[in-house]
Each structure stands twice: as C-alpha cells, then as structure tokens.
C-alpha cells in the first residue's frame, strides 16, 4: 500500500512540476458506464456520468495528468425471492451504485498535430465505490475505496486550433479490498478538450 502511495505521489508531483514548462489541456467529457464485473450487481448501462481531465504535454507525443470522474448506476430488479441458508426474502430491489474514479494518468499520442490523433493511455489511482440496495423501506449500504488501474484508448479530433473533440474508451479496474471484491466497468467518454 505504501508503494502504491509513492507511485501516485511521484506521478502527481511530476505532473505539477512539468506543468510549468509544457502545454496544458483541460477536458470535460460525458461518460457512459457499462460492462465489467459491475454487471453482477447492476446490469443497466450508466447514462449519468462525467469525467474531468487535466493534462500536461512534456512532449507532443506524451501527456501526464490527472482525471476524476463519476458514474451513477441504477437498476430496478423485478419482484423475486432471494434465499440464503434457511432464510428467504421476497420483494422488489432497487440497486444503486456510484463510482468515482480518480487517476494519475499518462498517454501516448500516435499522430500529434494531425487532424485525427489516436492515443493510448494508462492510469493509476483509486475508485471510490458506493453501493446500496433498497428493499422495502430498508437499505443496505456498502462503501469502499479501491486501488485501481485504468487502460485507455481513444482519439482526438481537432476542431479548432484551441479545441479537440475526444472519444475514449477506458476500463476502470478496481482491485479487491479486505472487505469487498474487485469491481470493474468500461467507460465510454465523449467530450471536448480545451488547449
């Protein structure tokens, strides 16, 4: 855990110090959340999500930065009976999950300066996962911070000298903690990058 913190701090300090000399960008993206092991809990696609990114470019091919996002998942499970041992409970379940990924990131750009610029990225950080199930007038809540990694691929489409359209697909992989299992989900992001 200490090693993970050191890596995170090194990336953060590196990001801030390089920022004084390089180009920076800021991005706001709409985020769809789907797939991954979160499907075991909620199968519906999250249509409520957002991602904010700040990136610094020490060279045209490489960026380092930080990003934070949020996805809200929701599903109504039809009336069903849930059994554990000798106990059975029947009712309608309303399941909710809020995922807040926060990553230090680095990306590699394949065609910088061109109209369409694909990129590959990697993030290391954390995902705060808050889940709760409503059944009847009762609620069961589970909240946990997970260590997480995030591979990402996407494309920047240049719209103006100071603005790009960004399309990205990332896989937020939150590792298991002592109390909860690992959880993962895909994020499809679309938004704008301001230079």
């Amino acid at each position: 855990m200490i090693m993970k913190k050191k890596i995170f701090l090194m990336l953060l300090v590196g990001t801030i110090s390089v920022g004084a000399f390089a180009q920076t960008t800021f991005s706001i993206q709409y985020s769809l959340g789907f797939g991954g092991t979160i499907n075991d809990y909620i199968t519906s696609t999250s249509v409520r999500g957002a991602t904010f990114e700040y990136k610094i470019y020490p060279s045209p091919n490489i960026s380092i930065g930080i990003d934070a996002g949020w996805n809200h998942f929701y599903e109504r499970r039809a009336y069903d009976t849930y059994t554990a041992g000798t106990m059975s409970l029947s009712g309608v379940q309303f399941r909710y999950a809020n995922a807040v990924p926060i990553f230090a990131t680095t990306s590699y750009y394949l065609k910088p300066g061109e109209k369409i610029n694909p990129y590959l990225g990697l993030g290391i950080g954390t995902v705060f996962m808050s889940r709760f199930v409503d059944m009847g007038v009762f609620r069961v809540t589970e909240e946990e911070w997970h260590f997480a990694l995030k591979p990402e691929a996407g494309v920047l489409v240049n719209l103006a000298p100071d603005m790009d359209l960004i399309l990205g697909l990332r896989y937020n992989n939150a590792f298991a903690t002592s109390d909860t299992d690992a959880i993962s989900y895909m994020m499809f992001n679309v938004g704008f990058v301001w230079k």
Partner: protein
Amino acid sequence: MRKKLIALMLVGSQFALWGCYLEGPDYTEELDLVYSNYNNKYDFASQGTYSIPDQIVKVTGDPTGPPEYISPIYATPILNEIKAQMTALGWQEVDVNANPDVQLMPAAWTTTTIVGGYYGGYYCWWYPYYCGGGWYYPYTPVSSYSTGTLLLTMVDPNLQAIDGSLPVVWTSAMNGLLSSGTDINRVKDGIKQAFKQSPYLKTN
C-alpha cells in the same frame, strides 16, 4: 470562442438531462417484503394438524396492558387466507385443545417513522431566511411513513421446553408501507408468497 461556447453548451445539456431520469419505486406495492425462515431439522412432512386463534394479536409494545386485537374487518380475511394456504399444503385445522401437531400464532403491528425534513439547511426550520430559492415563512417540514407488519409464527407444542418456551419451527413476516384501500389485498398476497417460498411446509 464561439466553438468553445457551443461545446460547453453541448456538454452542459447532457448533464441537464440527468434530472429527467427517474429512479425508485412508483407504487406502494413495490415496497412490500416477505421474509421466511425455518428450522431445517424439523420434519414438517410427518405433521398434519394445526391450530390457529380466531383473532390476531396487535403488538403495542406494552406487555403490562391487556392484549389488543386487530379489527375483525382485517383479521378475518387474513386468517382465512392463512387457513387456505395451510389446507393447500395438506394441513388440517383442529382445535387448540385437540393436541395439534403445530400451532400458528399470528401477530401484527404498525410502525410510524417520522422524518424531520429541512429546506436548504437546518436554519430554515426556524427563520424566514432566504433558503436557497426564495423567502419562506418559518415552518418545520416533517414527513412520516407508516409500515405494517404481519408476523406468522409456527411452533410445535409437543417440543415445549422445561421453562415453558415453545420452539419456533417456521416464521414469516410480511412488511409493507401502509396505504389506503388496497392494504388487505397486499397482505393476502404476502401470505400467499410466504407459503409459496416455504415449500418445505408441505405435509404428506
């Protein structure tokens, strides 16, 4: 600059649409729950007779007072539904003095939960402050909800302990938000579900 503004508006409009996405229950029935549990070492199949009171005890939380019972308007259809379900599983009702194999003991209660609300902040409870959107007279917005619970307990009087206690071999609880008009049908549906999810109650 214009492109930046359009981009911001596009992103902003997506976020604004979030409010149109509704969640949670639409109907009171969606909050109904049925719980059951049983002693898996108990041989239900070899039993055959049961007794049940002709009234349903109302749990008031006051053990010193005289027992109260729920109104026959509600108790009669509830008891009839329980008996119908027991009959369907092969049980025969007998008088409590006729040495029944098991006894069913129904009880019911209601619980009211008061939720203290506020508007924009707790200070809005007391002062006609500007509370994030307009001027309001001082008021204490308080809401409440009431739930009803029917508990059905099955005991075997032949297994009475030395201290007089009776071992519970099956229990079921039906809980739901109280509303007007359709509650009794919901309770009856809950009873049906309790027996449906307890197939081990079937006798030979």
